[in-house]
């Protein structure tokens, strides 16, 4: 699988094969259950085309100190992780959704439980199921 990776320190996407998401997970996305997502050792968040959360896995919930039931139904970029409401995160997501193609990995520093934490974010749109995913791994 070829992922589009945001080079470190750039805003310009380049083609590379780098992502922390195992390739087999991409094949499961069309039918990924909550149990499958909870089994992942990185954050898995499924959002609709507006950014509203449809699935928030256990790993991400533990990292953020939030309960999935509190955040599902809310907008990931503007309500749950508002520090991503910028051109790099939400802007890239919106452009990708509009283009029907989103596959971008970049480093970011989230604030989890009132502490800055370095992570890698992978924004992905499944071309078959047309579902959108935010994958997050601690760097």
């Amino acid at each position: 699988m070829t992922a589009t990776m945001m080079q470190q320190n750039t805003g310009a996407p380049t083609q590379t094969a780098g992502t922390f998401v195992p390739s087999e997970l991409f094949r499961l996305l069309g039918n990924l259950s909550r149990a499958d997502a909870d089994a992942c050792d990185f954050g898995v968040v499924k959002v609709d085309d507006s950014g509203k959360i449809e699935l928030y896995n256990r790993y991400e919930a533990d990292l953020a100190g939030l309960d999935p039931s509190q955040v599902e139904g809310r907008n990931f970029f503007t309500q749950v992780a508002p520090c991503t409401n910028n051109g790099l995160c939400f802007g890239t997501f919106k452009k990708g959704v509009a283009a029907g193609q989103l596959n971008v990995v970049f480093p970011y520093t989230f604030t989890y439980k009132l502490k800055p934490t370095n992570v890698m974010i992978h924004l992905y749109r499944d071309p078959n199921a047309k579902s959108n995913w935010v994958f997050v791994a601690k760097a």
Partner: protein
Amino acid sequence: MPHPHETPEQTARVQVLGALRAALRGQASPRLQTPRAVVPAASLWTGAALWDRRLASLGLASGDRVVVALPPGPAFLMALLGCWRRGAAACPLDLADPLAQNPDAALDAFDARLHVAETDHPASLAPDPAGAPRASATVARDAGEPAPDLALILSTSGSGGPPKRVALTWANVHAQLASHTPALAIAREEVVLSALPWRHAFGLLVDLLPALLSGATVTLESSGGRDPSSIIDAATRHGAARLSLVPLQLRRLLETPAGETVLANLNGGVVGGAPIRADLAGALAGARLRAGYGLTEASPGVCLGAPGEWREGWLGRPLACHTRVSEDGELLVRGPNVCAGRWSSRRLERQPRDRWLATGDVVEQAGDGFVHLGRTDHRFKLENGRLIDAPAIERQVRAALPPGSEIVVTTEDHRRLLARVSPGAAAALRRAWPADLPPPLVEERILELTPKGEPARAERKIIAEAAA
């Protein structure tokens, strides 16, 4: 609305922190991009809060001093803002400064209670990979008199001699940010490429903090502004709209094939730190960069030019301070940007707030702005009593030298003039030498440059040190 019992310095501190809080707290933009991380404002402010809390747990309070010996990046910024939240003065240190390798000496030099660095010392506190303070058994040491009005103690670049420590108050910092941030008019969606050292007033108070207060994205250039190809690469990849530079960086950029294109694509940026020569002024025609003039002792901004306004030695117009020219032609500055004094021998040598600060720069009025003519300390007398205005001679002769040649006029013995010129320029120098001056001893050599690209200051320093 200031509290009735607040001092002006307390009010200024509240205003500086209030502006930073409004710009950063909970915000996704601005953000800081480095080679390893993209840090949104919210995480920068949270990190600063953690530094504040850690400093408080170590017993630090308003008026204490903290040495910050970190490279530019999220940790530096979080630590600096954490110091400010605590009311402590941050003392940024160049990692190449011998003090940076010797925590005890650094703590002594600033009479500081804490040393923020990646070092193993009882009074050192290191950042974690995300920039927040690492858990450690640090013990803050005792220090002398608190100085609650100080926000920063900055080291000057030392191009004209050994580094000096300049103490800036909250009112100084507020005056600088409140005047320059709106004047620079950085747009929220712009990318500011940061290629100046943050430990200096120009990089910190003219470039970095105004960009963050404006909500822009700050991208840290990875070579520290030293490699023109790295600057060009970063500016191109990030679509940089702003870039502030010293003239030497600008000259090196323009020596590369893509440098001119990068400059043409900028919406703005400040060129400061040293005077602009005629050839650079010509090369900047059409660029949206602007001249900025100042000195660390003035926080640093004194004058700002309009975008695209260039001529040899142009300094711009005074901004939010008073200026006048002395009878000797020296520019004097007075206002809220003028520093509290020098930090020397472990204490603040305070100077009157309302004084006229002598800049050491000889200028002439040009409309409502100023043009730089030279330095007061570059005028000297020969033994025969004749006053020599070395910069004036250099300007006059330089125009007749082959392109790119440098010239320094000085004296080793105060009996005879010495003219050092770039290789191949001696004959042209002799032809252009003013007839009313005694013929100089001419030396052809590759001239030393200061970090800001000033051959005259570097060569004069070498000669002075040799004479001593």
